[in-house]
């Protein structure tokens, strides 16, 4: 394994310390229990947004702590959900009069640990479960879909609404709405190496890809021969559209997300493929974001996320934000 590391056990704490110092103008890092919170508590009463999950998806979630987005993020070990005491401590620190809204990606481990965290606090709280990954079939008998790159969009838009002083109920309803308007799907060209394991989670031969992959270096829904960018974009976009069933002339936010090991050049090429396809279906890409936002360590590959826009979502997407990974208008 080739990584910048001193001791494998200390990667997380060293990295978090570095993160805290590199962005000490806006956030602070607490260790044991680990959580990242805003440097300054908002002065107005507002719902406090707390997200979290296994590490290895950076900048998600710590990179989204700051004005207009999260109040705190709880990072677990690499690809392991955080522990409830992290959520408890973060909640107690960031509670700001209007309740706590947890934003959780739909994985057993995350859900269980966040539930246990919620059980430990006395503040009013609600949870938004993000499950945007259309690669996984949903059914009431299963865990359902995974939460992937759409999480950032939920965090941005609900974060914006919370900033206006909206109630916990309003934030929860809006978050569920954004999640429902959002679909994602990805493809991987390589696995990634969990530092503790020291070797890639899986091996792919030179001409194979994992189609419908998640964000933990885990295998996807199927393994296939690699295809041209246009072909695989079409397959993914078609699957997302089947799920989202947009009307004609629907405006959308198109997010091309890199998993960590794919150059921006290719991500923009994918954006180009997808935008053309969408425009051929009379869908208007009126907002866009391209980059590595929800990663799987150094995995090569990427995902598409589409959010159907309405006035509300657009407003809260456009509104000002100041986090280490997403910043505009301030």
């Amino acid at each position, binding site marked *: 394994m080739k990584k910048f590391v001193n001791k494998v056990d200390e990667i997380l704490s060293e990295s978090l310390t570095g993160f805290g110092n590199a962005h000490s103008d806006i956030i602070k890092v607490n260790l044991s229990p680990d959580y990242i919170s805003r440097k300054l508590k908002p002065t107005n009463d507002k719902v406090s947004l707390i997200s979290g999950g296994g590490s290895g998806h950076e900048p998600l979630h710590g990179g989204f702590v700051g004005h207009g987005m999260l109040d705190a993020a709880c990072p*677990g070990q690499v690809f*392991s*959900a955080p*522990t409830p005491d992290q959520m408890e401590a973060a909640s107690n620190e960031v509670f700001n009069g209007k309740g706590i809204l947890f934003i959780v990606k739909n994985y057993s*481990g995350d859900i269980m640990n966040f539930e246990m965290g919620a059980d430990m606090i006395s503040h009013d709280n609600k949870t938004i479960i993000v499950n945007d990954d259309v690669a996984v079939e949903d059914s009431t008998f299963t*865990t359902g879909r995974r939460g992937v790159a759409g999480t950032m969009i939920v965090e941005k838009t609900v974060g914006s609404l919370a900033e206006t002083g909206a109630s916990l109920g309003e934030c929860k309803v809006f978050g569920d709405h954004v999640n429902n308007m959002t679909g994602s799907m990805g493809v991987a060209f390589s696995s990634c190496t*969990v530092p503790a394991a020291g070797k890639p989670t899986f091996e792919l031969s030179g001409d194979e890809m994992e189609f419908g992959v998640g964000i933990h270096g*885990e295998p996807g829904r*199927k393994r296939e021969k690699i295809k041209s960018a246009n072909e695989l974009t079409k397959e993914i976009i078609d699957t997302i559209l089947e799920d989202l069933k947009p009307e004609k002339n629907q405006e959308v936010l198109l997010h091309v997300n890199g998993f960590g090991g794919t150059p921006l050049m290719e991500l923009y090429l994918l954006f180009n493929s997808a935008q053309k396809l969408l425009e051929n279906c009379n869908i208007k890409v009126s907002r866009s974001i391209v980059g590595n936002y929800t990663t799987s360590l150094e995995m090569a590959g990427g995902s598409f996320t589409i959010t159907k826009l309405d006035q509300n979502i657009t407003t809260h997407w456009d509104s000002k934000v100041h986090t280490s990974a997403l910043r505009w208008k301030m």
Partner: protein
Amino acid sequence: MNGAKIFDSIKNIEIIIHDHKEEIEKLDQEIGDGDHIFNILRGLEEILKLKDILIEESPEFIFKQLGMKIMTTVGGSSGALFATLLLGMSKKYDPAHSDLNNISQMFNEGVQSMKIRGKADIGEKTMLDVLIPVSKSLIDNSNETNISKVAEKISFVAKQGMLSTKDIIATKGRASFLGDRAKGHIDPGARSSQLAIEAIANQFIIS
């Protein structure tokens, strides 16, 4: 049941899990995200550190502390679930009961809490495919006087439960995202749970 015995069991579990490190790691790489073995080992290491502090305490208190330690250091699905198991177990200790009776009642309570926490039941390709049958077997045999016979029984049902996860698809946990591709692979949590049961059973078969 006392602190020394409890920590002996944990040490035995740690040994057997260590001996199967590579195998468990591989299982979670095949149908999960590869962290299961590290979660389990981190948990075991952390609770073994509590031995000196807790060894004189009551089983009730010990299980509660172990549960809290797992809860705050492990993370992932297994952290939440094993913490729930231990916390559940701590609630049902009764000094008036026999060890076997205590274990049956405690384990049953722990596993019930896990089912609720995980919203899962038998047949979903999880560690519960091991732990539910074991719990049932313990209840069924809670009046048995030959402890090593009980130990053999739970060791057997644990193994059966573990193997049963191989050819089914998962409907809970990370492996559920794989659909049919999960078939043919044993669930990592089922394997580690079964090994833990085996470690404890061996202890009783030998003693």
